[in-house]
């Protein structure tokens, strides 16, 4: 069996067989597929559901698919979805409550976790999963549903070859090559024969690879694979200066730029929904018609909503200026205080999916610049 850290080369048919092997292992395949003019993450039946020959153009508030003119299966960057749709789903029942006379019975709701394989997880996405692990699984209190789902995931990563205009994983030191967090990691090579250089990350990864035809990588395979990610690293659409970023933001909480971005922000929460590390949720209560049966459900929430920080008397953050500031300073500054990492992986989703095209890399650069002196005439 191919050992951890070792690589093999498989062709396109073998890749299809690899996916089938995962299905045969009792796993549901989740991965990128084209729907409604976007590449979304959904259940895959096999290799044919992958976005063959499709690329993406991403810019602030702009997302379009285009034909690449080749047969690449992973020739695009971040989807509007992220893996948090599976690990931290938008709605999860937490507790079932049954009332009998005046008595109440509480029971943890069964987890909807299933054995899945993430197909085509990118380095930035794997980094995001690692960040959410620290928040939701590894703290003093742990979310049982997240933990259960997390344990049932097989990760087939893909090292990036086609970054988009809003990508900045290099600045955040999260990509384009994944550094761990995967069972298998593939680099897709299209030139000189459609094939994949696949690295083994875990014993489970090695085991799945056993049932698939492969050969040892030649020198040119390895070189070509490295060249893909080396090239990708030079094609970042954006950069963010992270040195001293936490302190720079916390020292400028009253910078005039916050008002400027607050004036543009609609509070639509697209950024928080598409962000792979945003984890804020709320808990909702519903009952059946008789009132005897109730459910507590966890659902996605966003710090951009008006009553997110409700204190009696009103919101603690009534203005959009304050809410944008909360989001950005949490993501890039106070996250460090809480979890000892940045909250951002540089995937660019928040930039692409903002309807007014707010670019956090631009906001950060502006806030790091001292505001002009106000002169009193």
């Amino acid at each position: 069996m191919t050992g951890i850290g070792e690589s093999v080369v498989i062709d396109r048919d073998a890749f299809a067989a690899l996916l089938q092997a995962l299905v045969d292992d009792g796993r549901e395949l989740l991965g990128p597929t084209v729907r409604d003019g976007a590449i979304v993450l959904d259940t895959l039946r096999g290799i044919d559901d992958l976005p063959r020959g499709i690329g993406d153009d991403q810019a602030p508030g702009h997302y379009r698919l285009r034909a690449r003119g080749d047969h690449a299966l992973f020739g695009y960057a971040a989807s509007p979805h992220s893996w948090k749709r599976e690990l931290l789903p938008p709605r999860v029942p937490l507790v079932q409550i049954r009332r009998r006379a005046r008595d109440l019975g509480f029971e943890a709701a069964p987890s909807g976790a299933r054995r899945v394989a993430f197909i085509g997880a990118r380095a930035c996405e794997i980094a995001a999963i690692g960040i959410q692990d620290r928040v939701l699984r590894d703290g003093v209190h742990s979310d049982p549903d997240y933990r259960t789902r997390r344990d049932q995931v097989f990760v087939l990563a893909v090292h990036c070859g086609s970054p988009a205009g809003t990508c900045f994983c290099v600045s955040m030191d999260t990509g384009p090559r994944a550094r761990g967090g995967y069972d298998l990691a593939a680099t897709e090579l299209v030139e000189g024969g459609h094939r994949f250089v696949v690295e083994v990350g875990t014993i489970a990864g090695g085991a799945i690879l056993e049932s698939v035809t492969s050969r040892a990588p030649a020198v040119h395979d390895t070189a070509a694979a490295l060249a893909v990610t080396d090239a990708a690293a030079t094609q970042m659409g954006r950069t963010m200066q992270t040195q001293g970023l936490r302190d720079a933001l916390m020292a400028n909480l009253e910078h005039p730029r916050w008002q400027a971005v607050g004036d543009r922000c609609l509070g639509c929460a697209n950024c928080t929904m598409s962000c792979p590390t945003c984890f804020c949720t709320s808990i909702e209560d519903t009952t059946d018609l008789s009132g005897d049966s109730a459910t507590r459900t966890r659902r996605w929430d966003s710090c951009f909503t008006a009553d997110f920080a409700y204190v009696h008397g009103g919101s603690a953050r009534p203005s959009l200026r304050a809410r944008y500031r909360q989001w950005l300073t949490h993501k890039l500054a106070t996250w460090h205080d809480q979890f000892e990492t940045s909250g951002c992986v540089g995937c660019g989703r928040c930039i692409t999916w903002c309807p007014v095209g707010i670019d956090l890399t631009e906001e950060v650069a502006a806030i790091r610049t001292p505001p002009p002196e106000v002169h009193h005439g």
Partner: protein
Amino acid sequence: MTTTSPYVPAAMAIASSVRELADVFTWTFEVPGGFAFKPGQFNMLYVHGVGEVPISISGDPATPERLIHTIRAVGAVTRVMDKLGEGDVMGVRGPYGSAWPLDEAKHRNVIVIAGGLGLAPLRPAILGLLGHRADYGRITILYGARTPADILFRRELETWRGRFDLRVEAIVDQAGRDWFGPVGVVTRLLDGVPVTADDAAFVCGPEIMMRFAVRELDKRGVSRETIWISMERSMKCGIGLCGHCQLAGSFMCKDGPVYRFDRIAPYMQVPEL
């Protein structure tokens, strides 16, 4: 019931419900094994089908067989709670949060400043101080309310006032002719009591009140490293996973609600943070 999910509450029946003020009531639960908690901590209380809210524990940590909460009917869930009573079953999760540091206040004079309902989260601390009276110097309780009819735990305050080893003063914002005590803001009471720079202070009440109380303590030389306040923010999960209670880098359900003032001061000074 045993469960590994931190979201699942324990079922507890209200043993008694007592009206304190027009919109404030106190529930007592009987917990045979004892519900251990530290003064300042809170529970998430669940009302069937309606919702869950964080409520400070207002009982005596030394008698954990009786779990006590004092609640004001001010929102959707608490207004429903106001209509419930003896025998009704609630969900209880906790205790959560940080505590009034009775240990750090040892061998110091302690000034307790409470406003309105803020006396409820301080009550366990006061009982803790009185339960180990010899460990502390002067103990002073200063309480402010809107009018005499709004004085919380009035009988207990008057009983404490009767002790020789304790100073208790109460003041109201306004009163009629039938009130013979002082009228004014709660910090006026500091004018009439000895305050020394080494004193420890526990302050709890609306945020504005806590801010100006700390300012008055500052003026009298009390260090911000020996002033503790208790804050409030929206909470959904109570366990640091939902994100609602954050104030800058702090999760109020874990790092608070009791904070040493110097640690939280920079964040309180930024409007809408």
